[in-house]
């Protein structure tokens, strides 16, 4: 049963140079209790997807089309006041560079109180502090730290404080934007474990957005691959890693170093992401795809079902198995 269902979302930015089609027909499905990942390069529109869900967009951004269903209601039809009731109480967001997300001149405890006051029911201060302490211990932070200012926390601690804050109203869903990117590997793992633990104990659905696909590999149930404003492939985590069908996905996997697997050469994908100002009519990845055929340039491939739960937008996905071997062998110099 789907908690969040994004259908053909289109969000564009108006700039002095023209219309940037940052999110161009993206569909994502998150079920209750699931952790879903959205992977893609920087600038491919992933953050815009999250911002569109809670409708906290820049002044020059506009949602041009699509629907976002949350618990059956289309969020895009709600007015600002109703959206305010959804934000944080039902859907929380942990933004990119959460390091700077805390108000620098406010004690952490007061930020909890400020957030608590956005709910109609006025809880007494004591209850709010108790809840804050509860959440802090949940993420492994000492409750005495609540009286401190953000600049007194380390990066990892700030991240955990934000996670604690996001759980205040026990939301049904948390959207995370690059939650561990700025942290060192060891702390990364810690945080990811916390997230997994929280998700299990509180049965929250999570949508994680990141460029680091290995992060998603650790905790996600499903992974969506995004490129140039569109979804290229979606599959269950294991399926995606064992049997990637889109050339871009394959390229992504090879771009990350593998600590334990067989020694393979690191291959970065040559070329640059397409301009979203004037996107090409065909497949967005065509310019960098080693397997492109003329048809790829003419028309954008639609998402097709390769298997149960595995969808891909590529004309050549059936042949990919064989092509993969060829590519692997061919690039061994």
């Amino acid at each position, binding site marked *: 049963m789907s908690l969040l269902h994004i259908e053909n979302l289109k969000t564009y930015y108006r700039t002095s140079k023209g219309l940037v089609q940052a999110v161009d027909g993206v569909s994502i499905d998150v079920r209750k209790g699931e952790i879903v990942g959205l992977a893609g390069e920087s600038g491919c529109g992933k953050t815009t997807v999250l911002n569109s869900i*809670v409708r*906290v967009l820049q002044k020059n951004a506009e949602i041009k089309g699509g629907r976002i269903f949350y618990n059956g209601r289309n969020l895009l039809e709600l007015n600002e006041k109703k*959206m*305010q*009731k*959804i*934000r*944080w*109480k039902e859907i*929380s*967001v942990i*933004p990119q*560079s*959460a390091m*700077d*997300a*805390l*108000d*620098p*001149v406010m004690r952490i405890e007061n930020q909890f109180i*400020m*957030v608590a006051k*956005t709910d109609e029911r006025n809880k007494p201060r004591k209850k709010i502090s108790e809840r804050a302490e509860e959440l802090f211990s949940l993420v492994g932070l000492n409750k005495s730290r609540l009286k401190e*200012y953000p*600049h*007194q926390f380390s990066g990892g601690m700030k991240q955990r404080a934000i996670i604690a*804050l996001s759980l205040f109203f026990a939301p049904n869903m948390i959207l995370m934007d690059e939650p561990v990117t700025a942290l060192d590997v060891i702390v990364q793992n810690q945080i990811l474990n916390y997230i997994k633990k929280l998700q299990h104990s509180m049965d929250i659905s999570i949508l994680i957005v990141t460029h680091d696909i290995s992060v998603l590999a650790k905790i996600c149930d499903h992974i969506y691959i995004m490129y140039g404003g569109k979804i290229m492939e979606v599959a269950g985590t294991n399926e995606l890693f064992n049997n990637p069908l889109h050339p871009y996905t394959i390229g992504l996997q090879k771009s990350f170093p593998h600590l334990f697997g067989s020694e393979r050469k690191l291959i970065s994908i040559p070329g640059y992401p397409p301009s979203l100002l004037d996107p090409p009519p065909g497949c967005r990845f065509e310019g960098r795809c080693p397997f492109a055929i003329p048809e790829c340039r003419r028309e954008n491939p639609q998402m097709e079902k390769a298997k149960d739960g595995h969808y891909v937008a590529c004309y050549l996905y059936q042949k990919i198995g064989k092509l993969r071997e060829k590519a692997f062998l061919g690039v061994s110099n």
Partner: protein
Amino acid sequence: MNFRYFFARTIRFILSLYIVATIAFFILKLAPGSPLTQFINPYFTIKQVEILKRQFGLDKPLYIQYFRYIVSISTLKFGRSCRYKQDVAGLIADRLPNTLLLVVPTLFMTYIVGVFWGMFAAWKRGSRFEHLSILVVLTGRAAPTFWVGMMAMAVLCFKLGWFPSGGMLSPGAQFHSFWSKMFSSDFLSHLVVPLVTYLFYLIGLPFLIMRNSMLENISKDFITMHRFCGLSKRKIISRAARNSMLPVVTVIALGIGYIFEGAPLIETVFSWPGVGLLLVDAVTCRDYPLAQACFLIIAVSILFMNLLADLLYSILDPRISARRRFK
């Protein structure tokens, strides 16, 4: 509350006082002509001049004169005024409160109005209101204060007759106490025009700083975070404002400097009996001891209020009191 910082800052304040006093001393020494010229008439014999010199200690070597000067200043002995035939310290003590009564309300009004105005201008970014505001504020900066005062006086006092045209209080007015005097409608009606004139000139600084600061903060991550948390727009603006105010407070020191510097002009235009007017009068009559002392008092007031502003800032910004401030 960082006591180390408080202490260091106060020491710096006292040091600055002495440095300014020293500079004032040397300027007087550099000036052409002798300070005695006002006492001497051409019929004095050389012997009489010598006696006078000895009386004022001008025959002693420079370093002794300097030492005596520093000592007397520290004990608040500023000498006698040639013109008023009184102790300078007494004259200044009479006038200083009047200047403060003008300066402090002006400071408050300027910053309160400036901060709110800057906040609105940032909120309505790109609008006509914003562009007009910036134009008005720059005009205030570019127009000579005394001229604005003259214009205000011509319109508000003479043409419309709404306010009295000069002085601090109506002549012959009687009051029970200091406070009843200060809150009387008589005083306030005298205060309005000078204050508004002053405000027009000074408002540029807090306005522009607040506006720029708000524009910077509104696009910062923690504001986006507040939006994610579902805070109302009003609350978000107030959080942005709270964060934006820090640069404004930093700049209060500068504002204080400007206010005191403008005091001689405003007080002259409106015949406000303060230290600024006293300075101008003293200089016009070549009353050097009085002029010197007025200058020093103004410098001291500025330095003192800067000290207060710095201490206030260190309380407001938790990041400053947490770590040592280095220059």
